[in-house]
């Protein structure tokens, strides 16, 4: 990833993530920054996606409500927001293009769950509409 200086607020947040197959993989809900051990400005290490990340950014009542819904849906004890390492970011244009298919991403958890437990069971789920 070239060292492009971006205004993170304007150019990265809320952008659509698109995987290597052109499928939609969520939005840039929040960003993970790491301060390098040797000092210097914080470095963008990952994109955070999913209702958990979003609710924190929205804050306030609305965010808290969103967080509650998200936790409900996620179940389990895994309360971390889904993380997309910056290493898989291929390019940033009007959307953020990723170099991997979305099944490889943490953000696909809920989508996969829905597919496996609900929608996938309905007849015709695997076929394109006619």
């Amino acid at each position, binding site marked *: 990833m070239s060292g492009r200086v971006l205004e993170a607020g304007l150019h990265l947040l*809320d952008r659509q993530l698109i995987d290597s197959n052109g499928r939609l*993989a969520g939005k840039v809900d929040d960003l993970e920054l790491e301060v390098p051990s040797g000092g210097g400005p914080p470095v963008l290490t990952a994109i955070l996606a999913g209702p958990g990340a979003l609710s924190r950014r929205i804050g306030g009542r609305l965010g808290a409500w969103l967080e509650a819904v998200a936790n409900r849906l996620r179940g389990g004890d895994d309360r971390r927001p889904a993380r997309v390492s910056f290493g898989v970011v291929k390019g940033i244009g009007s959307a953020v293009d990723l170099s991997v298919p979305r099944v490889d991403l943490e953000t696909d958890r809920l989508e996969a769950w829905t597919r496996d437990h609900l929608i996938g069971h309905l007849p015709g789920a695997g076929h394109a*509409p006619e």
Partner: protein
Amino acid sequence: MRRLFSVALGILTAIGGFVDIGDIVANSETGARFGMSLAWVVVVGVIGICLFAEMAGRVATVSGRAVFDLVRERLGARMALVNLVASFFITFLTLAAEIGGVALAIELATSVNYLLWVPIVAFLVWLVVWRVKFDVMENAFGLLGLALVVAAVALWRLGPDWGGLLHGATHPVVPQGEGHPTWWFFGIALLGAAMTPYEVFFFSSGAVEEGWSRGDLITNRLNVYIGFPLGGLLSLALMAGATLFLEPRGIEPGHLSQVALPTLLVLGKLGLAVLLVGFFAATFGAALETGLSCGYSIAQYFGFQWGKFVRPADAPRFHLVVLLSILAGAGLVLTTVDPITVTEYSIVLSAAALPLTYFPILVVANDPDYMGDKVNSRFTNALGSIYLLLLLVVAVATIPLMILTKAGS
């Protein structure tokens, strides 16, 4: 030749798909109460929806992304969430109203109680969303919806006093014995019915579904500028029918059967049958559109895969949202609340939320990052801004007027 055919198809589909249960109820009730004095609101509404639908279609065509998709990027997550909640709630209410409308239309044809049809209708709506290709779905119900033209045919056959009708339409005067606030309230409801938010989401997402690109910009404009106004004429035909047959007798249409009376009295059994097909197609088509729009709005905000152009297994959460919305909508109708009442609420609340849902479209359509050289012209922006101001005034006035007039008493 092929091109001509597809353009014609697009226009016809736009005409047939324009009217939904909200328009049917609003135009009929208004005509019965106030004659043609509020016809100008339909004109204002049609111009408004043409303006913003063209914008939304252009955004999708040029950027390849649906308007709602981009709202979050442009306006930020918080503002877009507020927009989403309002839009989703209203679209859901409209979905319930449409499902109820389909059931009522079938009841009228079969005399079997509408409640029994609700589960079947819900299932069919879901099935079509699940299995039928997007353009096939749109074309089928759009063309079938053209059956509503029979209402206009009935008018023409009747040979009414056109001068009188025109006079009523061009002289917006509150009829004797009616209050001004009530008149304005009905006007607001009429505007809400003509400009219901889902129409724009759907139009924009539909452009992506059908894979429109720059070459389709002109088709987009033709569909909108020719199709929608003609669809608006169908609405006015319903209003005129009510003006001529219901108003003189003090009949207030609270049932679809009463809405059908004018057509029946002029064209008899055949006219009625065609009209019922039209009612069915219009409401079923709108149920499909609102169901999908429920899914579009949520998926496009959170960024997960949406659309009928992928296999359902590739857009599971989108399809789940659509399925749950349809179930919940059917559930609402099954509480035996009058579907006409649900419709009335949906159009009034739509009016109250119009600025919230339309403002983002104007913003996105002006963004050169997405639109390149196809940003709004100065004229479009001027007209769009005037409309937003108007919609703001309407939105602010809606609830107070509703309370003041006791919802149109």
